[in-house]
């Protein structure tokens, strides 16, 4: 039972008058004010650009640098022939604690590759950004390195990314010419089925 005596510091006479403390406070604010004012003016003339006048990052125009390990919007990596690396092993769907991943695999025409996903959805409205899907993937097919942070949408439906959006992070809903119905039969990007691996994709029986 150790007793710790906390001694409140007694204010000296000058501290009780507030005046010296106010002056020292004003000194700090004035020094910041005039330093930043000087730097802002110098920046207008293109001088002293290595000294920052404000800590502000003007967000939509200027993006904050992200750490390389930052977990941003997911993407599906692709092979050289633009087909997804994903082999439909379902590990990510299994490990996902939020159950936001939906995969429908199908048999691949190439006998060396067992399966491929005909449908790969991630519901970002449900995702907790834990990164387990990235860690568990044996094929390095899922990554969270797009650096996309503005994931806002007007509806829950728009928060669900399908395989097109996952393979090409620049695509955002609504995709023209894509019904997003399952099975996929859309042809965006000028007849080229974006994210398709061959025109005669075998469609699983729905």
């Amino acid at each position: 039972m150790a007793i710790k005596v906390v001694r409140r510091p007694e204010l000296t006479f000058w501290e009780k008058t507030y005046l010296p403390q106010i002056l020292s406070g004003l000194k700090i604010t004035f020094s910041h004010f005039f330093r930043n004012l000087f730097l802002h003016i110098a920046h207008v003339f293109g001088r002293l650009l290595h000294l920052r006048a404000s800590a502000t990052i003007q967000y939509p125009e200027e993006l904050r640098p992200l750490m390389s390990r930052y977990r941003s919007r997911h993407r599906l990596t692709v092979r050289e022939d633009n087909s997804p690396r994903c082999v439909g092993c379902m590990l990510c769907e299994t490990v996902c604690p939020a159950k936001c991943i939906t995969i429908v695999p199908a048999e691949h025409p190439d006998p060396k590759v067992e399966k491929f996903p005909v449908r790969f959805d991630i519901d970002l409205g449900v995702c907790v950004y834990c990164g387990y899907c990235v860690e568990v993937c044996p094929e390095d097919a899922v990554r969270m390195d797009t650096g996309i942070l503005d994931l806002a949408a007007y509806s829950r439906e728009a928060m669900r990314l399908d395989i097109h959006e996952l393979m090409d992070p620049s695509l955002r809903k609504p995709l023209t010419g894509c019904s997003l119905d399952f099975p996929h039969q859309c042809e965006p990007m000028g007849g080229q089925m974006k994210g398709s691996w061959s025109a005669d994709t075998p469609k699983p029986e729905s």
Partner: protein
Amino acid sequence: MEILVIKVVLAGMVFLAVLNLAGFHTWVERKQSALIQDRIGANRASIFGFKALGLFHGIADPIKLFTKEDIVPAGADKTLHTLAPFFSVFFALVTFAAIPFGDQLIIGERVINLQVASINAALLFIFAMLSLGVYGVILAGFASRNNYAIMGGLRATAQMISYEIALGISIVGVIMVYGTMDLAELVRAQGYMIGGWVPMWGIVTQPVAFIVFLTAALAETKRVPFDLPEAESEIIGYFVEYSGMKFGMFLLTDFLETIVVACVATTLFFGGWQVPFLLPDGFHFPWGGEVLFANWFYALLGVASFSIKVLIFCFVFMQIRWTLPRFRYDQLMSLGWKGLFPIAVANTVLTAIVLVFFGEST
């Protein structure tokens, strides 16, 4: 008839200058606080892509406030609820009538006092009007029919009454030294040079009164170190139930009162429109130099001097507002009653004794 035209022009000038300065304050407040805190400050409002360092926020704000829905809470006294912000702004604005912003301007035969209303007890008028400003606050709290608003109004009233006493007594010393309550005469009396070098401004003759006055006056403006009545960030103040431009008027009152206080402090303690070594016919330097010019230029210099002093005061007030944290309520009361009030009284007594024994110096 002629005098009426002159007075209307003067009043219009003061009105325009003061309201514009108050509007400008919103920009200064944003930018100054931003610079102090290493930020940039509001810079998004633009006209045709032209941003002008965020100056247009001062226009965007009133447009927003005017177009917002004006809500009067159910059960509130509609008349008083509407009247309260007008009270606030009116008493803050009417104060400027008594403030001399320049010396006499002579046009032909006519001598124009650069003061809207030449009242011979102008100081009393100003303090009376500042005191009446508390009615706007307490009516706002009372008419809102909101317990928090009433509490805020009562806090404001208690604070303003406490500090008004220190404020009033602190300037008694100034009145005794210069022997007049006419502000124009008071400023003229400050033009005297002690030993030919030091101007006899209020800050030189009454430094203690100046500090007491400044503190009490800051408390009167209800801005940050003393912003317990409103305290936007945490406590609920007297204008919770106000929206739109009615709320904007309370905000405007704050800025107007800051300018009033800056004007009064300039007039009482910094020689109003006085410029050192400047006499009505030009500069007379104690080392013998002389620069002479016409009366209109002299009057213009006076107005410029007054304006610059007021602007510096506004700047310093803003700096204090962004430097100091808020007082606790008991600290506020004990500072007012146990700190400022005795100091002001002691200063008055000391001034009286000094004047009796070393009088005739004025």
